């Protein structure tokens, strides 16, 4: 009994560290939600928290509901991050594209920007629904 309690405390400590780290990156993102860099850091913090919950959540006694909410927030952040990355790649391609390709790239860039705008709105909504991580 003592051993299993010790293991549980260890698992809870590991997860608590990840919650603190993720909350810090998320709070930083909330201060400047247009920053691609801060979003990237917040997403990485959420990914680490999610992985810790997948590894040790059962042992620590974390609820499925909490894991689901972290999963959803991470997914939403991922949509915005993906759009940021794809727009950057399109910009890279534009630097040495021939005229036909440039035409395609401009149309694609506009479509990606629309996606990013939608994704940002949904992420902001998801952040509002998880007050315990907003710091």
């Amino acid at each position, binding site marked *: 009994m003592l*051993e299993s309690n*010790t*293991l549980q405390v*260890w*698992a809870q400590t*590991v997860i608590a*560290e*990840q919650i603190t780290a993720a909350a810090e990156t998320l709070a930083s993102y909330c201060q400047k939600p247009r920053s691609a860099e801060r979003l990237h850091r917040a997403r990485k913090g959420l*990914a*680490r928290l*999610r*992985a*810790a919950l*997948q*590894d*040790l959540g*059962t*042992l620590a006694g974390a609820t499925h509901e909490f894991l689901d909410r972290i*999963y959803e927030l991470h997914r939403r952040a991922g949509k915005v991050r*993906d759009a940021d*990355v*794809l727009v950057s*790649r*399109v910009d890279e*391609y534009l630097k040495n594209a021939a005229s*036909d*390709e440039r035409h*395609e*790239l401009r*149309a*694609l860039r506009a*479509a*990606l920007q629309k996606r990013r705008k939608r994704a940002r709105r949904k992420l902001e909504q998801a952040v509002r629904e998880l007050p315990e991580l907003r710091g």
Partner: protein
Amino acid sequence: MKDARDITFAGIADSQEAVRHLLRVRFAECLEKEHALGSGDDEAIHAFRLACKRLRYALERSPADGTDFKPVAKVLANMTEELGAAHDCAVLAKRALDCDAALVARRALQDRGRYVRRASRMWHDAFESGGAFETLASFTGFRWSPQ
């Protein structure tokens, strides 16, 4: 990360043993999915990348007495970065086709192939004698024949 294996710790007495068990399961997941690197299947490659990330995160937060996991974590970080870029290119190609941008799709798929090949080299190099995975294999009890 939906397909992460559930881990139970029944019969495990202390945190060092739990770390060993956890790393063994997460390393096994990567080994199960490594065939994706030669498959050309974007979904399978993505699943392999996520398994490698789970292993890396577990390594980075799991200090093990007398074992330095930094080199393994570094290889996994570099490799997943390449696979992340490959995934971005695969998604870009799909979005490009949705917008009738065939030239962009072709270019993105060429880049995707290059990133996967680089990641594949990193993964296989890590299994060579003295490679980055030797420490992890020894800690978790995996063995393989030298390449």
